[in-house]
């Protein structure tokens, strides 16, 4: 508890003092001048590649589908993300699955002469020793994201010798399987310097860059840039950054992060009480996820800023989803872009995925929706309920509206002090039922979607989601919180020092921009330029 307070309360206060001293407020175009912002890159704990990254990377390397990663045990998720370095664990089940998938990938690759030849410059399965060596060096460099050192090459040569039975193709597969189970592939070990903060060596920097921007290991071009000194200058680093940012993988990474930020990871398992929501079918979770993916993809390609995400009155539906939402069927087959009524719709906030996920099976939940806004958009989670309170959702009563059934939260003083922070935000969503569809009647009463935003930098009365969305899109606190979410994903850890909060502040500045022209792409680009990204601090012994 104490630790949480120190991060959330004490440090922002200190940071505010720094900002007042105009120390961190700059956009850092040339260099980071304020010592507290620049001195310490912060801890960089060993990262394991996540299931998401593993699937994409092993697919790149060998041609197996990325879905092979589904065979791995799930990643630990904390702070809302799958890549937090302090959380992961390993077991023999992990090791068994890594073995299985590595063997599958190895068999797949060795059956693909085109790929093998592209890597080795010859056909290593023919058994020529020089060609095998060339394959080990070439594939090893891609898999381990750096050239192999002599002893590593020799070790893999030994694996080849030990597995080339009955033929050389088996040895090649053996090498691939070994490379893909080694820590240099499964983890992202970075050379550790003794006592000082130093620039990361180029291959480690390339690895950070690639996973940050694409959720996968470096491609040939990036490795070549690392090898030729291309990443040694800021211009060179930014050139590679911009190349990767326009590729399809960056958009996919954006979706991956945004879906976690919006707490949509459990969407595939979402279900509703079908006696109350008769049009909910097994197909709904996938349809709602697709709607959100298409929305995010368009945002990334277009204007990926908070205004788009929070307010754009557009979405994507196919005929079935349109029928579910009671919208006109879209022209054309499959999912189509549709423009919605801006007095009702507001970006992700009115998508079925978000609304249905933040609701109960049989009723809406102003608490869950309000709590999401406070915790994930303002980074100001409400305190937990007092320990002596038996928490239970009110029984569904068709004669009463949700608002009436939650009246106890304001009637009971012990509840009211915290629920005043959540429920009045959540009430603004009341036009959307627990499955995410528009409604005018709740119980037997007309919907009342008025509410209140309090304790933020954009306080004021609310009536419906668009009124909330407009305030959120204007909020500096929401921008800073969004940058905080990105920081956690990008660095795989919680923000924990003044330097970190300084970094978050820089990211938020890039997200909003001086004249409102910032966006997510610029925030990602700003990440790459930060000291914490390009340097590695001295090892701190626990």
């Amino acid at each position: 508890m104490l630790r949480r307070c120190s991060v959330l309360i004490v440090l922002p206060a200190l940071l505010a003092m720094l900002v007042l001293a105009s120390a961190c407020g700059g956009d850092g175009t040339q260099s980071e001048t304020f010592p507290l912002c620049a001195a310490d890159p912060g801890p960089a704990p060993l990262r394991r590649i996540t299931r998401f990254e593993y699937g994409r990377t092993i697919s790149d390397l060998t041609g197996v589908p990325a879905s092979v990663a589904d065979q791995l045990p799930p990643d630990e998720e904390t702070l809302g993300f799958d890549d937090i370095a302090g959380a992961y664990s390993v077991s023999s089940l992990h090791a068994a699955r890594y073995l299985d998938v590595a063997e599958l990938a190895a068999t797949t690759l060795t059956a693909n002469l085109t790929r093998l030849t592209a890597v080795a410059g010859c056909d290593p399965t023919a058994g020529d020793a020089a060609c095998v060596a060339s394959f080990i060096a070439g594939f090893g460099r891609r898999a381990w994201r750096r050239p192999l050192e002599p002893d590593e090459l020799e070790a893999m040569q030994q694996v080849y010798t030990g597995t080339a039975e009955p033929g050389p193709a088996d040895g090649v597969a053996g090498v691939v399987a070994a490379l893909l189970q080694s820590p240099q592939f499964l983890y992202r070990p970075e050379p550790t310097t003794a006592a000082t903060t130093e620039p990361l060596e180029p291959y480690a920097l390339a690895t950070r860059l690639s996973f940050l921007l694409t959720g996968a290991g470096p491609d040939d071009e990036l490795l070549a840039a690392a090898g030729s000194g291309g990443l040694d200058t800021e211009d060179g680093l930014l050139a590679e950054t911009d190349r990767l940012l326009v590729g399809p993988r960056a958009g996919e990474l954006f979706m991956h992060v945004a879906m976690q930020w919006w707490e949509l990871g459990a969407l595939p398992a979402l279900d509703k009480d079908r006696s109350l929501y008769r049009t909910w079918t097994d197909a709904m979770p996938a349809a709602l996820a697709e709607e959100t993916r298409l929305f995010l993809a368009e945002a990334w390609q277009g204007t990926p800023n908070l205004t788009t995400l929070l307010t754009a009155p557009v979405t994507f539906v196919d005929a079935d989803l349109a029928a579910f939402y009671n919208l006109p069927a879209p022209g054309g087959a499959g999912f189509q872009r549709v423009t919605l009524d801006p007095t009702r719709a507001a970006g992700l906030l009115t998508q079925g995925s978000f609304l249905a996920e933040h609701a109960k099976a049989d009723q809406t939940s102003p608490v869950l929706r309000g709590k999401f806004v406070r915790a994930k958009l303002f980074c100001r989670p409400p305190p937990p309920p007092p320990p002596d309170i038996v928490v239970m959702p009110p029984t569904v009563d068709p004669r009463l509206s949700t608002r009436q059934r939650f009246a106890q939260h304001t009637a009971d003083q012990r509840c009211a002090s915290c629920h005043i922070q959540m429920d009045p935000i959540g009430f603004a969503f009341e036009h959307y039922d627990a499955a995410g569809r528009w409604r005018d009647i709740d119980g037997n009463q007309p919907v009342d979607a008025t509410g209140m935003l309090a304790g933020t930098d954009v306080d004021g009365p609310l009536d419906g989601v668009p009124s909330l969305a407009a305030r959120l899109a204007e909020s500096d606190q929401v921008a800073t919180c969004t940058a905080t979410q990105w920081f956690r994903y990008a660095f795989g850890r919680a923000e924990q020092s003044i330097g970190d909060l300084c970094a978050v502040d820089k990211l938020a500045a890039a997200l909003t921009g001086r004249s409102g022209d910032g966006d997510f792409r610029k925030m990602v680009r700003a990440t790459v330029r930060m000291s914490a990204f390009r340097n590695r601090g001295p090892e701190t012994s626990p």
Partner: protein
Amino acid sequence: MSRSMPRGTTRPLSRRTFLRGAGGAAIALPWLEAMRPRRAQAATSPVKRFIVMFSADGTIPSAWTPTPGASETDFTLSPILAPLEAHKADVVVVSGLEQKGGGGDGHQTGMGGMLTGQMLNSGPFAGVGAAPAGWPMGPSVDQRIAEGLAVPTQLRSLELGVQVGAADNWGRMIYRAANQPLPPDDDPAGVYARVFSDLHTDPAILARLRRRRQSILDGVGAQFTRTSARLGNADRQRLDAHLTAVREIETRLTTDLVVNNPSCHDPTITPVSAAANDAFPAVGALQMDLMVMALACDIARVASLQWSRSVSQTRFSWLNITEGHHDLSHRSDDDVAAVDKLTRINTWYAQQLAALVSRLKATPDGAGGTLFDNTLVLWCNELAKGNTHGRLGAPYVLAGSAGGALRTGRFLRYDGQGLPHNNMLVSILNAMGVPDRTFGKTEWCTGPLTGLL
């Protein structure tokens, strides 16, 4: 394998037959009969087995607690435990212990302490109304058994799950050691492929595969050692833990599967959508089949079946219950409908335990008798009661005697004695043949549970 499965008894196999077997789900290949070794080893002492079964979100104590009679052997099973009537003489119902634990929110505390008798470390998982917590400070009791008995099986232990999902301290109960959760495998098809591969692989191919994997894992292990040496302390510990896991896989490669039990055969599994809510019973039934067969084949002697997770939101639609389990578990004791539903949910879990016991009783042991004779099953829950998060009087049912170590057919009431469940875990260790005098957090544990053995 080559030592334990004489080649002479194996009919020749076509590669086609092998591939069909390796790729498919529902198979029982005829040549497996031929693979069975003819010789049996003389057993010096009975092979004991330990199983944990977990169900979530607390129980309804009034509907769970048996009605006591004149003595501990004279009792009437409660509504929830009624499905165990056929096995009444083979169970011990234990009430009134405090399930110790600490750190995290109520569910985290309960889940972490349930099998470890330990506190949670501080860590990354932020619960409701508590400081963020990590993993427990020690191993779970099943892992201590595996260690104490130095089980020589291919798998040190077998963790099976039914829709457990996310990797966090609400969803993990088995710990290899402090901070080392062992995830359950939720997918019966994956379990089948991994656990029974030796039974459905042509011996000649298997022998080659094992040699090959040893070469590969030798190389991999060396890379872990090499990389680890270049890292800082904390990072090094992570890679060292991974290396331990790799070594366990290697151990399996060098451990021959010695099948002494005629009831061991390659199991048949039917395809099932492992994550679909309504498939929950079917997935559980498959996992129980696979677990029992893994015990029969002596692939593992320590196993667990985890139904969902703490804060389980399973919807028991097959019982005509539409609400999520956890939502229901927070309803008031005055909510008659909710109490009825929770009673039915817990009764259903008792039926599953009964089914597991029946399977064990129906499976002959190689050394004579049935698997059940030498097995001990512990059914536990992270909480006593869902709407209070209370852990006093957590519901424990033990089934089986562990080869006569435990006197069964009893209802033991420890209510009001303030005893920690650590003591029961010590007695379980003793029943299994591990002579420890304490388990879990030493400040809590006061020794074996008086009267249990």
